[in-house]
């Protein structure tokens, strides 16, 4: 039995401005780096040195992961299994603009469904790729930390516990906060914790 920590990147200025990022490669500012360091200290204290640290390829995730390797040592392994989904034509808009200009698609998303917009990455595919990545890196003895994004973390956890990607049983892990997925010897996953390091 061992666990994988799914850590959401620290907030960027775009997050704080309520803007949809998706595949836009926005960097952390000093405030975001400080949030990452706060959480990294606690993760390092709990899981110790020699942790394996994986990250989504986007800068905000890699910067967050580096706050942890700065303490526990080792390198950040970039892994596309944990990449953000594409938000298609919504990327760069504020969520207020999305709600105003795409009301029907906004409601689809609120109900847990894929909004019908150009370029959107469907949730079933995202859930499957994240779970495949978790099962590939999982080690029965050694825990790992994966820095990823809001949607892939929730969708990967849903897939791990056998829930459909459209399920609303799980919210989003806040920025710089973490969830813990534990896999027992039978191969089954459970959600050990959700929202560590949030308010």
């Amino acid at each position, binding site marked *: 039995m061992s666990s994988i920590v799914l850590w959401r990147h620290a907030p960027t200025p775009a997050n704080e401005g309520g803007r949809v990022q998706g595949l836009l490669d926005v960097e952390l500012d000093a405030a975001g780096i400080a949030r990452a360091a706060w959480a990294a200290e606690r993760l390092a204290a709990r899981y110790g040195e020699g942790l394996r640290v994986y990250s989504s390829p986007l800068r905000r995730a890699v910067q967050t992961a580096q706050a942890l390797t700065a303490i526990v040592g080792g390198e950040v392994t970039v892994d596309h299994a944990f990449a953000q989904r594409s938000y298609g034509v919504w990327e760069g808009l504020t969520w207020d603009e999305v709600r105003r200009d795409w009301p029907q698609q906004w409601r689809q998303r609120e109900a847990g469904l894929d909004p019908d917009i150009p370029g959107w990455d469907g949730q079933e595919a995202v859930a499957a790729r994240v779970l495949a990545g978790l099962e590939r890196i999982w080690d029965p003895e050694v825990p790992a930390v994966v820095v990823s994004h809001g949607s892939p973390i929730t969708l990967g956890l849903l897939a791990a516990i056998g829930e459909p990607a459209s399920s609303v*049983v799980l919210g989003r892990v806040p920025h710089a906060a973490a969830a813990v997925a534990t896999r027992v010897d039978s191969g089954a996953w459970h959600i050990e914790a959700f*929202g560590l390091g949030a308010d």
Partner: protein
Amino acid sequence: MTRLFIVRHGETEWNTLGLLQGTSDIPLSPLGREQAARMAATLSELVSPDAVLVSSHLSRALDTGKALGAALGTDVAVDARLRERAYGVWEGITPEERERRWPREVAAWHAHGNPGIEGFEVHEQVAARMVAAINDHAQKAPGDLVVFTHGSSARIGMMGLLGLSFEHRTLGNLGNTCWSRLRHRPDGRWTLERHNVWADVVYVGGGA
């Protein structure tokens, strides 16, 4: 109701010995009281000022709840439907004796099944009374609802609210004085927003 917090009681001596407590009324240990005070100091900052507090009648849960009640200046209501799962003849038995005398039953239990021992309350029974109690109190709470309960009753109650299958252990147990937070959606479904968090891992904001 705005949000539902589900809190597990502080540590007891039986917890440290690995004994199942179930409906046996075991008091908090000195450490359990310290844990309750830490939980109360943090949760009193997070819940709404008009939060409604309801506890299992078992003293380890009720005394944990009273720590938050004192911090908020509010009473803790008691609802016995929030009690721990009954473990029947397993209550107070050491893990070694349990393994020796009931090997097949223990294996079924570890696989999240029903061990079928005398007096054991099955998942469906626990879920039914937990969900009924929480829905009753949620309808009456103007702000947040905070429920003080036990390891198994908390987990099975949440799985019941969320509609998760009992076939697998999809949610882990809460640690002592750890809590979860759920939101009731406008469409009637529930969403888990926090699970198994505790005072030390709460981010208290700017400059902390």
